């Protein structure tokens, strides 16, 4: 369950949004995770787009 949460962009998005409004915590980890997840999903989307051609 912990792994699922760590790869879920919605988890990191919510953490960052709350911290942008002043919630406690360091946003660095969530920011890095979100960037990495975005790059991986973008690459996967392109691969699937090519395969469905």
């Amino acid at each position: 369950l912990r792994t699922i949460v760590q790869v879920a962009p919605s988890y990191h998005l919510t953490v960052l949004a709350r911290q942008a409004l002043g919630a406690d915590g360091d946003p660095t980890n969530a920011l890095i995770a979100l960037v990495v997840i975005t790059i991986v999903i973008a690459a996967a989307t392109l691969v699937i787009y090519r395969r469905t051609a």
Partner: protein
Amino acid sequence: VLGYVRFETVRTLRNPGFLFLVTVVPVALYLIGARGVDEDDQIGGIPSSVWYLASATTIGAIGAAISGSGARLAAERASGWARQLRVTPLTERSWLVGRTLASLLVVLPVILVVGLLAVTVGDVRLDAAQWMTFTVIVVLGSIPIALIGLIVGLAFRAESAQAAQAVAFVLLAWVVPSRSRSSPLRP
């Protein structure tokens, strides 16, 4: 790319019913969550009303980003429109950028409506820099979710894409960190 983004944007804006529907869930979540909270009540170091603003907006953004791309793309594939696009000079990367930007456009009304609600009903007071940072984070943070919507639209047929999109939304909303884990969708 800009021409394609403009085309997709106009297409989305021509459907005000869709824009209305994507704002219903976050509005309901905010009203339910922030109802009757004490002014002094704090969660995670911020007032409850601000916490619920962030939670309801992100859940709304998740729903908007996914539904702004998924099922519609599957329908386009079924109708042959996606095949038509492939014979145009539009590159794969341009298609990806254009579709993602167009999907993100749907997130903006969610931020606007929940923000207005938070200010008027929840008496939330934030400075301009906080609003700007919050908006940028929610929009840019919705990129991977819009991409998941695109994957759903590419991987499923039009008949099943709607259901797959709903499952993806529930899973993504379920992992959102909540004040209480008793209800996964509780903001």
